C-alpha cells in the first residue's frame, strides 16, 4: 500500500450481464487533494463510486480506502469516509432533522452540536423541521452534504454534486466543495462537466466506456488541449476572410451558417480582431465555441475523435 493515498483502486472491473461497466481501471487519490472523475453518462463513474462504498462488488481488482479494504475490514472501511451516490435520497415522511438524526444513529451517534453545525453549513437550519418530501432537488442535495459532514470524514465522495441544480445552486455547491477541500478534506467527485472539474480539482481521471482515457493533473490536461475556437460574425465576412491572411498563426474558415470560425491562440485572435476594427469592419457577434478543455474532453471521450490523445498518463498528484 502506498502511504498517503486516500483511494487506491487497482485493476478494478465490473460487468453487468454483457455490459463491461468498468474495465480494469486504476485510480489513485492522494490524501488532501481534490480529485475529479470525469466522463460522459455511462462512462462508469457512478459504478466505480458505488464500488468504493461497497454497494457493488467488483468482479476483479482491489480497492483500498484510507489503507483499508472491504475484505479485511468490512464496513469499517467506511470509517472517515462519507458522501453520496447520484442524488442523495432520504425518507420523505421524516423531516430533514429526523433523517439526519437517524443516519447519525447508524454511525453510532454524533457529538453534541454537530447536527446543528452541519445544518448551518449547508444553510438548511431553517428548513430542517420540514418533511423531506416537500424539499426541492437542491435542498436534498444540500441535506446530502450535511449527512456526509455528520460523519466528520477525511474523504468526501460526491457523485455529480451539482447535477440538477440551477446556476445559483451550482455556484454555491462548487463554493461549498472548495471550502470543504480547503479545510483539508480529500474530495473525490465525479462529474460530466469539464468546467466544474477544472474549477475545483487538482487531478482528474477521464473515463470513457468503463476505461481510463486520461489521468493526470489539470495543468497537464491543459497542455494537451487544442487551441480555442471562436465564432465571429461581421458586417463583411468576405473581406474579413481576406484579412485573415495577415495572421498566419490563425485558422479562419467560413462555416455553413455564414459566420467565421477562428481557431488559434488568444493573442493572435485579439490581433485579428484589431485588424478588422482598423479596416472598419464591425463585429456583430464574437463567441467562444468551446473552452480548450471542453474540446479536449470531447476528443477524449468521443469515439469519432482523435484517438491519439486518448492515452493514459501516469498519475501526478498535487499535494494541497
Amino acid at each position, binding site marked *: 500500500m502506498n502511504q498517503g493515498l486516500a483511494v487506491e483502486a487497482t485493476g478494478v472491473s465490473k460487468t*453487468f450481464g454483457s455490459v463491461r461497466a468498468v474495465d480494469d481501471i486504476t485510480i489513485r487519490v492522494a490524501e488532501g487533494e481534490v480529485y475529479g472523475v470525469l466522463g460522459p453518462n455511462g462512462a462508469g463513474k457512478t*459504478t466505480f463510486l*458505488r464500488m468504493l*462504498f*461497497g*454497494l*457493488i*462488488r467488483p468482479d476483479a481488482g482491489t480497492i483500498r480506502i484510507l489503507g483499508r479494504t472491504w475484505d479485511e475490514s*468490512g*464496513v*469499517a472501511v*467506511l*470509517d*472517515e469516509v462519507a*458522501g*453520496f*451516490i*447520484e442524488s*442523495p*435520497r*432520504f*425518507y*420523505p*415522511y*421524516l423531516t430533514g432533522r*429526523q433523517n439526519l438524526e*437517524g*443516519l447519525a*444513529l*447508524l*454511525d*453510532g*451517534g454524533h*457529538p*453534541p*452540536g*454537530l447536527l446543528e*453545525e*452541519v445544518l*448551518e*453549513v*449547508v*444553510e438548511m437550519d431553517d428548513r430542517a423541521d420540514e418533511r423531506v418530501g416537500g424539499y426541492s432537488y*437542491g435542498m436534498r442535495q*444540500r441535506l446530502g452534504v450535511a*449527512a456526509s*459532514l*455528520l*460523519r*466528520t*470524514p*477525511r474523504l468526501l465522495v460526491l457523485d455529480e454534486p451539482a447535477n440538477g441544480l440551477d446556476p*445559483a445552486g451550482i455556484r*454555491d*455547491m462548487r*463554493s*461549498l466543495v472548495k*471550502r*470543504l477541500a480547503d*479545510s483539508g478534506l480529500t474530495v473525490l467527485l465525479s462529474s460530466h462537466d469539464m468546467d466544474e472539474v477544472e474549477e475545483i480539482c487538482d487531478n482528474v481521471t477521464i473515463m470513457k466506456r468503463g476505461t481510463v482515457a486520461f489521468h493526470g493533473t489539470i495543468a497537464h490536461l491543459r497542455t494537451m488541449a487544442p487551441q480555442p475556437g471562436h465564432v465571429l460574425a461581421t458586417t463583411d465576412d468576405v473581406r474579413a476572410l481576406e484579412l485573415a491572411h495577415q495572421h498566419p498563426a490563425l485558422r479562419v474558415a467560413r462555416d455553413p451558417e455564414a459566420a467565421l470560425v477562428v481557431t488559434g491562440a488568444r493573442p493572435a485572435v485579439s490581433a485579428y480582431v484589431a485588424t478588422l476594427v482598423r479596416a472598419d469592419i464591425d463585429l456583430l457577434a464574437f463567441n467562444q465555441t468551446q473552452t480548450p478543455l471542453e474540446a479536449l474532453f470531447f476528443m477524449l471521450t468521443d469515439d469519432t475523435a482523435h484517438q491519439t490523445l486518448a492515452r493514459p498518463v501516469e498519475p501526478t498528484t498535487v499535494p494541497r
Partner: protein
Amino acid sequence: MSATTNAPVATAGTTPGARTRPGLVAPLRWEIRKLRAQLRAKAVLIGALVLPVVVVVVIHGQSRPPKDTLFGRFATVNGFALALLILGFAAQWVLPLLTAVVAGDIFAGEDQHGTWKTVLTRSTSRARLFWAKTLTAAGFAAIVLAVLAASTIASSVLIVGHEPLTGLSGQTIPAAEALRLVAVSWATMLPPMLGFTCLAILLSVWSRNPAVGIAGPVVIGMVMQLVGALGGVEAVRPFLLSTPFEAWHGLLADPRFTGPLLDGLLTSAVWCALSLTAAFTLLRRRDITGG
C-alpha cells in the same frame, strides 16, 4: 445557499475517524423510529383496535348466528364464542395481511425511496440492518396481534357477555377458564404469524416491490388454505404455514390435545428459518445499482 461562502465548515470539536461502530440497538432504534412515523403502521394498529369492536357489535346485532362456522352457533350470545369465531376468520387472511403491511414493505420500501445507498454508506453493516429490520417487523407483528386479540376479547366479553363456553366436545368450560383458553388460543397465532412475517420479508427483499411484499403472503396463505382443504394431501398439510393457524382447536376439546401446537411451532420455525436465510443471502449478495 448564497451565503455559504462565509459559513464555517463543520468541525464541532470532533476529529475525523473517531467513530464508535453501532451494534444492533442503534439500527433497531432507527427502524422503530421510522415505523412510528409511518401512517400505514399507525392505521394498521388503529384498525386492529377499532375494527373488532365494530365486528362484535354487528354480529351481536344479528338475529341468526352463523351456525356453520366454528363457535358460530353461540357467537351472538356468548362473548368467548364470538372471540373464537373472529379468531377463525382472522386466521384466514387478516393476520397475514396485518403483518405483511409492515414486513412486506420494510426492505422493499428502501428500494421504493431509493435509500439503500443512503443507509449502506453509513457505519452499519448489511447484516445488522437486516436483523434490525427483521426484529422490527417481528415486533410489530406481535404488537398488532396483541392489540387485535385484546380488542376482540374485551369487546366480545363486554358487549356479548361472559357466560360459560361450550367447548368443541360439548363440554362446559367455566368463564374464567374460557377466558384463559381464548387468550391462549389467540396467542397460538403468533408462531404462524411470525412465519408469514418472515415470508413477507423474503418477498420484500426478493421483489424489491412493497406491493408484492404485502400482497404476496396473503395470496400464498389463501392458496395454502385451499390446498390444505383438498382431499388426499394429508402428507403435505403439516408443512403448510396455514396449518398452525388451526392448532388451537385442541385446546377447546375434551380431552385437550397439544400435538398440533408443537407441530405448528416447528412448521412455523422452519418457514421462518428458510425465509430469513434466503432473504439474508439475497441481501448480502445484492449489488445496489439503483436506490
